[in-house]
């Protein structure tokens, strides 16, 4: 890891929060692991290995980053990305261009930590291309302050070549959400497959908007888009899951589960399925309601009170 000068303290602070959010900061110091650390609008550390090329440039309020994985590169360790913002107010923009060559395998672990945000906006756009026969997964874990003053817009545009396999996982279950807008769009070529999933725990007056979209453009392509939201108190959530079966033998399933607790919640979901080929097959599943009563009573019959039982069930679901 090459740390930019004078950023040791900032690195330490970000590392501390990164660990709180479930990350392992020691990975950043491992020279065999590809890693990138952004604090505010500065790139404060980076490391790469053979077969992975990193480029970046400063932009207004943030960083634009190119990660190029060469053909046939199979990384044993995940690429670690950490984006932090340690001030209370401000704005951060992160633009990421991932390109994964043919027959490669890579996993991204991204942590976004905004522990002090009072009036803070984070915008991230990740454009990802996955080459033929490659396997790429991108897990994005957010850790926000408890103030509700963080606004996040996260957009993931992904294009999968023939036979590529892709996973995109967004998780915001620690701290307050604030205002969240997530958009995941995946275009799939022949025999490509994708699983995209968002898990969010909304409290107080948090606002959540999630759109997940599968464009099954290739023959025998398949995809699963799933959203799980636990909405409590006066939080609001709108979830849109879309699947387009545009090619023969394409198969897609969309699923939304919104679990609610509290009289002030306001949640909704809109499933959208469109088929343009008679051999395509799409399905959907959606539910909105309280925590499953039988699950609750199972745990309560073992001695947990209702709140403890709810917490345990939800923690499991959002994991």
């Amino acid at each position, binding site marked *: 890891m090459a740390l930019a000068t004078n950023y040791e303290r900032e690195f330490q602070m970000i590392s501390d929060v990164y660990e709180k959010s479930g990350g392992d900061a020691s990975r950043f110091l491992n020279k065999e692991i590809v890693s990138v650390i952004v604090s505010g609008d500065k790139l404060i550390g980076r490391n790469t290995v053979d077969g992975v090329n990193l480029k970046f440039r400063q932009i207004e309020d943030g960083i634009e980053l190119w990660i190029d994985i060469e053909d046939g590169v199979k990384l044993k360790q995940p690429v670690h990305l950490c984006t932090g913002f340690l001030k209370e107010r401000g704005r951060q923009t992160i633009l990421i261009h991932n390109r994964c060559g043919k027959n490669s395998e890579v996993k991204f672990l991204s942590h976004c930590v905004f522990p002090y945000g009072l009036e803070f906006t984070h915008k991230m756009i990740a454009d990802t291309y996955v080459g033929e026969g490659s396997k790429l997964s991108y897990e994005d874990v957010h850790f926000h302050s408890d103030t509700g003053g963080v606004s996040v817009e996260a957009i993931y545009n992904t294009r999968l070549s023939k036979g590529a396999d892709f996973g995109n996982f967004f998780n915001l279950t620690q701290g307050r959400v604030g205002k969240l807008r997530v958009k995941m769009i995946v275009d799939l070529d022949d025999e490509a497959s994708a699983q995209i999933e968002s898990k969010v725990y909304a409290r107080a007056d948090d606002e959540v908007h999630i759109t997940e979209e599968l464009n099954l453009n290739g023959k025998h392509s398949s995809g699963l888009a799933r959203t799980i939201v636990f909405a409590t108190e006066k939080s609001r959530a709108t979830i849109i899951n879309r699947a387009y079966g545009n090619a023969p033998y394409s198969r897609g399933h969309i699923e939304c589960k919104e679990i609610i607790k509290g009289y002030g919640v306001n949640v909704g979901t809109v499933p959208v399925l469109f088929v343009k080929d008679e051999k395509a097959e799409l399905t959907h599943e959606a539910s909105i309601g309280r925590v499953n*009563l*039988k699950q609750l009573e199972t745990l*309560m019959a*073992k*001695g*947990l009170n209702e709140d*403890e039982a709810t917490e*345990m*069930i939800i923690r499991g*679901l959002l994991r």
Partner: protein
Amino acid sequence: MLELKSISLERDDTNIIKDLSAVFYEGKVYAVLGNNGVGKSTLAYIIMGLESYRDYTGSVLWDGRVINGLSVPERARLGITLGWQEPCRFDGITVKEYLTLGEKKQFSIEKLVSTLDVVGLPRDYLSRTVDSSLSGGERKRIELASVILMEPRLVVLDEPDSGIDLMSTNMIQRVFNSLSGNGTTLIVITHREEIAEMTEEAYLMCGGNMLKNGDPQEIIAYYRTACDNCKHVNEPLKGVN
């Protein structure tokens, strides 16, 4: 001691439980035997105080005190629990977390492993998830293990062998031994004679009521002759004692 006094429960103008009375003494192993649909599981839910089964009439007494108004966790705190016929799936929760209620209860690994051994599961199940990756039978075994770890004063085991292969009656016997060894009162809901044979006293249930009670062998003999081919299911013949 658990006493049920004149319990009745109606659903859609049908009496599911009809003026039912029974007594279960501390430390004994009871069977509640009966065909499907006679109200056995409903009785289990009434004893546990489940939300949808609280509108019964009559009294549930625990150590002489009426507990009709107590919720599920309140009854659990008294030492009453339920082993479900079809245990739920819990996405994202490991067997270890399930058994320790998310670490709320502290058990040594040795204790957890030895309890899994009672129900015939190896140690590596502790890291498995209690979701659809486990079969119904495996979840049932885990449910029984969790009941053993609770060391309850009274447990209602609703069809403890359902979903478990017929060859596993030895395992069921081990579960009963483990529980009764701790002084737990067992109420075993079953429609299988082999399971009722493992108990000390049996009730025969029919039409939402207790038709007979006594020695399990006598109750089983009656059940075999009268209930197996009964043409009056849930309409018990008058005059049976």
